[in-house]
């Protein structure tokens, strides 16, 4: 114990930055991610793998759209809504985009208040984020209903290339599933935060380490990723 006490009192050595820092971090016998907990590192690695999944969907959509000889339906017209007797292009998708960005903003602030140990504000902002997410899923359900009523199916649609339906349902469906899981995850963690599980070290999932509000940031990483994927879907599927 005397030895460990000695180690405890020592200041950790300054770490190299830049390219030297990468080599030093990866080549040591310890762990590559020095100041990142396993939970955060694993969430990042999961998000990386999820990136490849969504990329495969978007790439298959690109391949289908580039190789079809039938004209692709114009998303600007397909997703237009009639408001006040006027066709406004893509308006529903624009509103969904703003809602998801707002939810990302509230999530970022929740992470900030979490690290300040303001558990009421953290939980409140997380519930707001979850509410935005639920609204987004609701609007997506409305969009799906509208398109299915108009005759869009995975194997065909009234306006052009048959692959439009399959690409649309696959990409937005998978993204909507991610949002739904995120909402559930957010509500579960927000409830723990509000109850003070992270202050008292109450036993349970994610709460074993006392004084750690890091799980709020990890939840936030997932949530921001969902928003990030939507940025790409919005640009490549709806606007292109």
């Amino acid at each position, binding site marked *: 114990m005397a030895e460990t006490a000695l180690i405890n009192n020592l200041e950790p050595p300054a770490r190299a930055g830049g390219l030297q820092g990468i080599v030093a971090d990866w080549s040591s016998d310890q762990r590559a991610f020095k100041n990142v907990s396993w939970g955060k590192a694993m969430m990042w690695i999961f998000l990386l793998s999820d990136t490849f999944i969504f990329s495969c969907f978007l790439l298959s959509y690109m391949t289908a759209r580039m190789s079809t*000889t039938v004209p692709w339906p114009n998303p600007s017209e397909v997703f237009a809504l009639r408001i006040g007797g006027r066709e406004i292009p893509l308006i529903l998708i624009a509103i969904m985009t703003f809602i998801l*960005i707002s939810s990302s903003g509230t999530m970022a602030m929740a992470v*900030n208040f979490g690290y300040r140990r303001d558990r009421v504000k953290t939980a409140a902002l997380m519930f707001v984020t979850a509410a935005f997410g639920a609204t987004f899923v609701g609007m997506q359900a409305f969009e799906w209903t509208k398109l299915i009523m108009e005759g869009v199916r995975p194997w065909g649609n009234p306006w052009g290339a048959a692959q439009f339906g399959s690409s649309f349902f696959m990409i937005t469906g998978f993204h909507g599933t991610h949002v739904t899981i995120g909402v559930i995850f957010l509500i579960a963690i927000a409830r723990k935060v509000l109850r003070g599980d992270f202050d008292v070290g109450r036993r349970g999932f994610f709460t074993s380490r006392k004084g750690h509000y890091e799980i709020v940031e990890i939840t936030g990483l997932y949530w921001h990723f969902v928003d990030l994927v939507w940025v790409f879907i919005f640009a490549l599927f709806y606007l292109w």
Partner: protein
Amino acid sequence: MTNIAVHPEAQQHSLQDHGHHAVASGAAHAEGQQHPIKLYLVVWGWLFVLSTCSYLVDYFGLQGHLRWSLILLFMVLKAGLIVAVFMHMAWERLALAYAILLPPTVLLVFVAIMVFESDYTHLLRMIFFAQAT
């Protein structure tokens, strides 16, 4: 956290001295991830502006290369803001940033391969569908 070598001992310590450990780790975190709320509000505002811009591209019906380059520009800017500030990648050590951000760039090769592939498929379809009619 301070150093990995300390970690097992730190856990032992926490058994005896809960308060000390919690305060110590809390301080370490506050140091790493404390940013003023204003920063998030500014980024939020920029994301709104950029989203509005990309929506206006469609609203005004811009076409051709101008449309595609604008869409890609706004997309990359938004993605960069989210990853750098909201996901705190700008403040992580480079070892993590490179481990996460470099692999997706390989996707550009995949995109290039599939562009050639779909061009070829399109050509074949044009030839054979033209013959069929």
